[in-house]
């Protein structure tokens, strides 16, 4: 049992170490180092030896010395004997080993004897592995987007693996793609259009949604249940089904290529979500407040503006942020309704840019950074509001 558990622990921790070093090697390759192999066999032997040695040594020497011994041995073999690699790479390896020995320091021979210890180990390492794996998989495309926007066409073609940026160069060269998209491709105008459309959608949606949500949450009227179920159903209805009839109607009314047209469509498509989210919150406001207000002879307008809105600022801001993000990210309707470059939104402009095969990719990526940054900024900054809203309303997407 003890031997089996020891081998199991060593294997799992070894795989984890291999994973850590491999990610570091990929990142190092992308900085221009020529690493052509992961040397998995050597990593495996070393990882296994380190894990066994860790268990064998136990607490007999301080963990700091243990770390020094392990990492210097490891670095000497991996970073020096097999392939001479620069010092910063080895410093990175040192930190990885520091992290690794820290993680395995809580396991010892006596711990391995406990019940379910293999499962506990597996769970622990899977969690660690998962966190790192998902961070890498999610952040890598964003990292690539950002880096590519700072490169030149030639650099991208010569060595697609070189992600290093020369910060020593002139600021004008570094941000060249951004200057170009703002100057030659009128991205300033598109940002303005996108902002006007998104903010406009938020305002109109709230104007329509707050009274309606209040009625659904509080008042009794014929057709109330029907209304609240239809909200749910409409909210599930796909945009692709609306595209053709809306296109024909808008063409005949001359609403295509206009901001008004987009505003109308965005408002209508976000209204059900907004009403659904708001009425849920309105229901949680104590009724007594309104009853007092009715005694004070306040009209429904007064009740909404003086009681409901001040009390539900968090919910309203979460709906507002949400609707803003939906409108900002929206692509399908802007693709269908806008074909005149003067009325493009950001998303549509980037798609238009990519339609020309000659457009250098760094411009495309610079455009992508421009459209992504505001959304990510809003999301990270207001995360608390947004996450509660996401689970409450589950935004369409």
């Amino acid at each position, binding site marked *: 049992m003890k031997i089996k558990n020891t081998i199991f622990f060593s294997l799992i921790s070894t795989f984890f170490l291999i994973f850590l070093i491999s990610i570091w090697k990929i990142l190092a390759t992308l900085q221009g180092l020529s690493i052509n192999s992961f040397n998995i066999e050597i990593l495996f032997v070393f990882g296994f030896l380190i894990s066994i040695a860790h268990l064998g040594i136990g607490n007999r020497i301080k963990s700091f010395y243990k770390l020094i011994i392990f990492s210097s041995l490891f670095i000497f073999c991996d970073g020096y004997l097999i392939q001479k690699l620069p010092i910063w790479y080895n410093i990175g390896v040192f930190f990885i080993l520091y992290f690794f020995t820290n993680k395995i320091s809580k396991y010892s021979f006596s711990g391995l004897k406990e019940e379910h210890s293999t499962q506990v180990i597996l769970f622990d390492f899977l969690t660690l592995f998962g966190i790192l794996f998902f961070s890498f998989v999610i952040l890598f495309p964003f990292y690539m987007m950002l880096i590519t926007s700072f490169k030149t066409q030639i650099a991208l073609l010569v060595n697609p693996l070189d992600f290093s940026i020369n910060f020593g160069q002139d600021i004008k060269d570094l941000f060249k793609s951004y200057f170009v998209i703002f100057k030659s491709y009128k991205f300033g105008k598109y940002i303005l259009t996108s902002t006007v459309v998104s903010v406009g959608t938020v305002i109109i949606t709230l104007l329509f949604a707050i009274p309606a949500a209040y009625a659904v949450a509080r008042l009794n009227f014929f057709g109330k249940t029907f209304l609240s179920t239809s909200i749910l159903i409409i909210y599930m209805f796909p945009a692709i089904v609306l595209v053709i009839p809306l296109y024909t109607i808008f063409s005949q009314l001359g609403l295509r290529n206009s901001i008004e047209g987009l505003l109308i469509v965005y408002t*209508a498509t976000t209204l059900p979500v907004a009403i659904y989210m708001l009425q849920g919150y309105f229901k949680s406001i104590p009724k007594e407040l309104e009853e007092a207000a009715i005694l004070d002879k306040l009209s429904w307008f007064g009740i909404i503006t003086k009681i409901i809105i001040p009390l539900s600022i968090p919910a309203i801001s979460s709906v507002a942020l949400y609707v803003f993000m939906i409108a900002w990210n929206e692509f399908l309707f802007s693709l269908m309704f806008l074909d005149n470059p003067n009325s493009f939104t950001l998303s549509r402009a980037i798609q238009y840019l990519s339609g020309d095969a000659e457009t250098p990719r760094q411009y495309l990526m610079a455009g992508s950074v421009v459209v992504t940054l505001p959304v990510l900024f809003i999301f990270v900054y207001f995360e608390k509001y947004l996450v509660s809203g996401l689970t409450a309303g589950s935004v369409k997407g």
Partner: protein
Amino acid sequence: MNDTLANIEKKTAYVLTLPAVLLVFAIILFPIFANVWISFKEVQLKDIRIPEPRAKKIIKSISDETSKIKILYKLRNSSLLQEIRDVTFQDKYPKNLKIENLDPRCDFKQFILKCDFGNWPAKYKENFQVIFETNDGSIIDKKELKSIKPKLYGKSDNILLNTKFTLKNFKKVLFENEFLDLLLTTFYYTFFGTVGSIVFGILTAQMVNQKFYGRTFMRSVLLFPYVAPVVALAYTWELLLDPNSGTLNSLLINYRIIETPINLLGQKYIEISILGFDFKLRLALTTVIMFEIWRYFPLAFLFILARLQAIPKELYEAADVDGASPFQKFFKITLPQITAVISILFMIRFIWNFNKFEDVFLLTGGASGTRTLPINVYQQGFAISDIGMGSAVSMVIVVLLLIFMFFYFRLLGKRVDEN
């Protein structure tokens, strides 16, 4: 008294909900009915523009005579297909002008020229010209003349409003166009995308539900793909997977894992042999599904995490006392607690993935075996310019969707009953 109060309440409710209901009706419900109407018609993209009578005003000076001027109107029917009936024309002029040669179709009164041009057949063109002279021999101001635009009116048939119907579109959708293949691709895409995103959602939620340093940061990062604009993400992936100079292929070649680059988004099939069995994997479709999972697992993650955090701690403590292993705890406590949320998530994501258009459109444009039903709506309606066909395809989507929704609401109803 009570009755009137209830009446006031009712009235208020209708006033409050009316604007929202009307807007949603006009932009969402009405188009759905319009879709049914259009799907039974033979309409091309070029037919939907209503024919208009148009006139281009050109002002020409006549040499040696500054007090005289020639105005040329280039008249035409904007439609190449339909005639316009009873075209009337109207234009205004400055007060000091008099007309020289009046066309018999026209009438000049109070400095307004009115003409009845009768019917214009399709593609009709005419150069209509009038000559004016000033009363007092003064020089004519061309700018003023140019600033006034002529007005034209005419009647024409709107092809969308006549009552000619046909079943041709549906016949074409169901029996031509490899309908079965289309349906199958859509189901693969929807099913695997949904299952994948839920599986990853469970894994990540389980992960983030444990205590570790940087947990809130991790939660934000996991949601990035879901909140970022699809356009930016799709083009980044395209660049990442590019066969010629994409990062992924370059990395794989650099580490000698593959020898020649793989065109992950442009290759329909790839042959894989496992244990002597040869499989043909739909490569581009798989890549698109991967993107789909990558982009939408955060939603599943968020829902499941919220549910996990609501599970009472006592359950796990009791399990610890009984000596349950981590796997037992996961399968016996956690999983049963989240099945409700998973089944609802499955339905929501299934319906939404079924209608997903942007992701596939931006990544492959529907090429190399990734043509799903929504992509087909776009292709029929706008690439082939057959609006009627596009509508018919989207009707198929609506019908399938109604079936899914029926099941979804039955499921939802069951859950409500259980609680």
